[in-house]
């Protein structure tokens, strides 16, 4: 892996961290945060491999003890709590979004991007997060689904759209996923 890819990975890990400083809305065991916007951006700007690694790197920074989660939490504790499943699902979500984005790269637009973000950033995250929440917090399925997924969906749709709109602009002015031939080796 080139140093440049490493720098992009580090950059998006930092972006997810900075988005954690925006105020989170607490609606039960799992807070609404802007950090999943960062997860979606990592996938849709960097692609599958680098997006996955960027979010994984972010989790490593958290695990090392830096207070980078939206709540100001850090260390290993969040990986054991009720919302651990969501954290673990993030790199996977970025990878799925990145994979879908790469597949649609030459005809990428906000609608396709949003579709990728919804599949990777909403479906994948809840598919992992909700069962973990149910088990760790000992909730019945209905409550887990309601407090662990349904309340977030409106916000998530907004984030999926926002990430696609941003990625679309970035794709046109600074494409990272597939550089145009003229700049293959340098920028």
């Amino acid at each position: 892996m080139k140093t440049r890819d490493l720098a992009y990975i580090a950059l998006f890990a930092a972006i997810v961290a900075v988005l954690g400083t925006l105020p989170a809305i607490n609606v039960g065991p799992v807070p609404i945060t802007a950090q999943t916007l960062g997860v979606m951006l990592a996938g849709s700007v960097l692609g599958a491999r680098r997006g996955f690694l960027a979010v994984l790197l972010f989790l490593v920074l958290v695990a090392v003890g830096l207070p980078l989660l939206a709540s100001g939490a850090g260390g290993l504790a969040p990986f054991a709590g009720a919302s651990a499943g969501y954290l673990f699902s993030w790199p996977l979500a970025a990878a799925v979004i990145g994979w879908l984005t790469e597949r649609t790269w030459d005809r990428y637009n906000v609608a396709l991007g949003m579709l990728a973000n919804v599949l990777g950033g909403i479906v994948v995250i809840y598919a992992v997060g909700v069962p973990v929440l149910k088990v760790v917090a000992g909730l019945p399925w209905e409550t887990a689904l309601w407090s662990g997924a349904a309340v977030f969906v409106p916000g998530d749709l907004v984030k999926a759209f926002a990430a696609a709109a941003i990625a679309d602009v970035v794709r046109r002015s600074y494409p990272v996923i597939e550089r145009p031939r003229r700049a293959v080796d340098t920028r």
Partner: protein
Amino acid sequence: MTLALYVPRSSVVHRMHAGVKLLGLAVLAVLLFALPTLTAAGAALAGVLAVGLLLARLPVAVLARQARAVRWWLLALLVVHALTTDVRTGAHVSLRLLTLVLAAAVVTATTRVNAMVAVVEWLCAPLRLVGVRPARVGLAITMALRFIPVLIERADRIRAAQAARGGSPRGLRALRTTIAPLLVQVLQMAHDVSEALDARGADDVPPPRRRRSPTLETP
């Protein structure tokens, strides 16, 4: 961003191996969840404060800043639990979170980032088998930590530049006029940083042993 930065002092806590401190942090977290009582959380908080303020001689402000960063979150936990379960649980859960945040702050304030990175690199050593070079992981961590304050500063700068021209875009317009340009700017910056690192030999494969065999030099 209230990233607890390193506070140079000469203390036992500072000199302690970073791996030991991180292990201690992990053990503390496990214990706090294994012993879910208000007394345990209170005692742990007292312990963390003693280590941070007395042993490590950190300024109160360093810890206060961390506590301030999570104050709304603590309050929310307290309120939610008061409404759904009871105040005692709320107090316990928020005290536990505060303890962990402060413990993390003590570790980060007494440990150089590079020492922390070295621990992660050490943990990554087995990944060599699948072709991951631990030093590259360390470099990625160092860069990410470097980029966090830069991102905040660039965001402020873009916002100020737009305010100077009488704009303060919100909502959808902000995506195109603030966030996307910011992203392009920082991608370029990341590229520049990687180029400067390469110029200092970042992509050199370090010598296998202390002395490099010159015949292995060229690809």
